[in-house]
């Protein structure tokens, strides 16, 4: 029945080709807001092309945290004095800002964690470990980051559950036809990334949710890569859980977000316990707070919340239209240039259809480490390794790859510099 449906990809996701009328970024103005970009490496201006790993911070994000420390620093929710009220307001403001970014129904759906990884672990322990039982199945894709894979693997061992893999095709994409075969009555959860941190593929989340829900499975979306690259609308996707990290969207480390649909949150028991998440503690028994607080044990990342608010404001002011357009242009240039080099092997979709600004490749005959090392000589920061996706690399028959990933501040010149510098790598190592 399902397989007879016409596949209509969620517009907001698949249709990533930039609207030619979308506003162009004022790149030099943007770059001026990132102090680190004036840094020189080995006499060259820094070309930071490792944005899938972490992003740089604009002045406003740094300033927001400095202001918090210099003006309002105190703990949240517990004091009646002025600083405590300001700190609490600052923290709850961040929750509202996240809700706005994700188009959540309410800020009560927003739980702060220390990052994406903690968010996945939270859902595995607070929701899945209660809701799933032996015989059930969890479906993940072959392109998952270890953080959205290992916690499920461990849970499967713990509960006697099966872990199924949704394989990728030759282009590094997921085939919706195959999904119909994979979704069984026993599938209770689909855990998938919205954008691959290696292949750059943009996955059809909305469509997956539709099919998963039709057989009663919930969907966890890893938005670590997507959050800074495209608008997310949790109501449109209709997913059940979604997670991302502050440091991947021009915000600070130390804070992350788990968004949970209200009806699912009601089913969740606490994971970490301690101060702040209780309603009453007796000697042998405790009762829990309601709402997101129930899942936020201990002093939360208060200062980081101020930075996260500023980061989201930065993104929303810049506008996803311009960001997507800019990053798509750069990625297209990069793909074009690399494809014309005969000794370069590129992984992931070759066209910009359903593709974001992450490009993994190898220079034949040279180890990725050596490529990255030599590129660093020219001030170019790219990553070499398996990028926390060993299952994907095995599938591709690789140990490692070089990965470049663009951000809002990258320039065409930087991409061209990378391509030129590959010659330098060849001269030294081939």
């Amino acid at each position, binding site marked *: 029945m399902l397989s007879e449906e016409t596949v209509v990809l969620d517009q907001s996701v698949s249709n990533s080709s930039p609207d030619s009328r979308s506003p162009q970024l004022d790149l030099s103005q943007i770059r001026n807001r990132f102090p680190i970009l004036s840094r020189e490496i080995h006499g060259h201006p820094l070309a930071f092309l490792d944005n899938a790993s972490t992003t740089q911070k604009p002045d406003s994000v740094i300033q927001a945290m400095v202001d918090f420390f210099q003006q309002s620093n105190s703990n949240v*929710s*517990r*004091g*009646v004095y002025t600083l405590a*009220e300001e700190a609490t307001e600052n923290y709850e403001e961040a929750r509202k800002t996240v809700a706005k970014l994700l188009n959540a129904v309410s800020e009560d759906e927003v739980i702060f964690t220390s990052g994406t990884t903690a968010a996945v672990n939270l859902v595995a322990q607070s929701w899945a470990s209660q809701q799933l039982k032996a015989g059930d199945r969890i479906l993940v894709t072959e392109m998952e980051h270890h953080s959205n894979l290992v916690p499920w693997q461990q849970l499967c061992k713990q509960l006697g559950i099966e872990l199924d893999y949704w394989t990728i095709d030759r282009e590094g994409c997921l085939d919706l036809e195959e999904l119909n075969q994979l979704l069984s009555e026993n599938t209770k959860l689909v855990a998938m990334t919205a954008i691959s941190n290696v292949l750059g593929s943009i996955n059809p989340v909305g469509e997956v949710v539709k099919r998963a829900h039709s057989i009663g499975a919930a969907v966890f979306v890893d938005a670590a890569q997507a959050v800074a690259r495209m608008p997310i609308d949790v109501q449109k996707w209709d997913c059940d859980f979604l997670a991302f990290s502050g440091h991947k969207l021009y915000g600070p480390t130390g804070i992350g977000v788990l968004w949970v649909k209200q009806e699912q949150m009601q089913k969740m028991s606490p994971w970490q316990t301690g101060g702040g998440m*209780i309603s*009453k503690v007796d000697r042998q028994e405790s009762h829990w*707070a309601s709402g997101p607080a129930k899942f936020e044990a201990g002093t939360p990342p208060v200062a980081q919340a101020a930075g996260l608010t500023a980061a989201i404001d930065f993104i929303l002011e810049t506008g996803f239209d311009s960001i997507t357009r800019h990053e798509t242009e750069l990625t297209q240039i990069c793909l074009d240039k690399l494809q014309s080099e005969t000794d370069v092997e590129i992984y992931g979709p070759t066209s910009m259809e359903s593709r974001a600004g992450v490009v993994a490749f190898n220079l034949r005959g040279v180890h990725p480490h050596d490529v990255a090392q030599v590129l660093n000589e020219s001030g170019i920061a790219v990553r070499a390794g398996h990028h926390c996706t060993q299952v994907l690399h095995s599938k591709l028959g690789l140990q490692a790859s070089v990965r470049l990933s663009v951000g809002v501040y990258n320039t065409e010149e930087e991409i061209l510099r990378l391509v030129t510098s590959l010659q330098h790598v060849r001269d030294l190592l081939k």
Partner: protein
Amino acid sequence: MSSEEIYKGVILDHARHPRNRGNLEDPDFEAKAYNPLCGDELVLHLRLKQDLIEDCRTLVRGCSICQASASMMSEELKGKSMENAAALSGIFKKVLHQKDSEDSETLENLRPLMNLRSHKSRIKCVSLAWNAFDECVEKFHETTEKTTTPS
């Protein structure tokens, strides 16, 4: 607003001399509310005559704001229908949580409490009594549903 302004006039009077304090012997509805941040506790008893609130008592272990709010609430509730009282609670809470919203005329008697809107941490103290009342409203609806819906 300053403490001088908070702790004077109506609020202080209610805090010092809480109206309708205590409990009813055989209440029609009872609810407890609890503030996990400070351990404050409040018990609310209601006696109804059909759907009219005939009597109402509160027992508060809490700060003066919490005391005053409970006392002021009890005066508001008495004599109102459950429906009207529930509506009042809704308006009150809405205005309480929105710094910039206009307080409506129905809130006339509760206006002194609105000055606490700028003290976010005290809003919980103001709301506690009304949370208990909302719970009673829920229980009231459950019983009326039971009696009107054939089971």
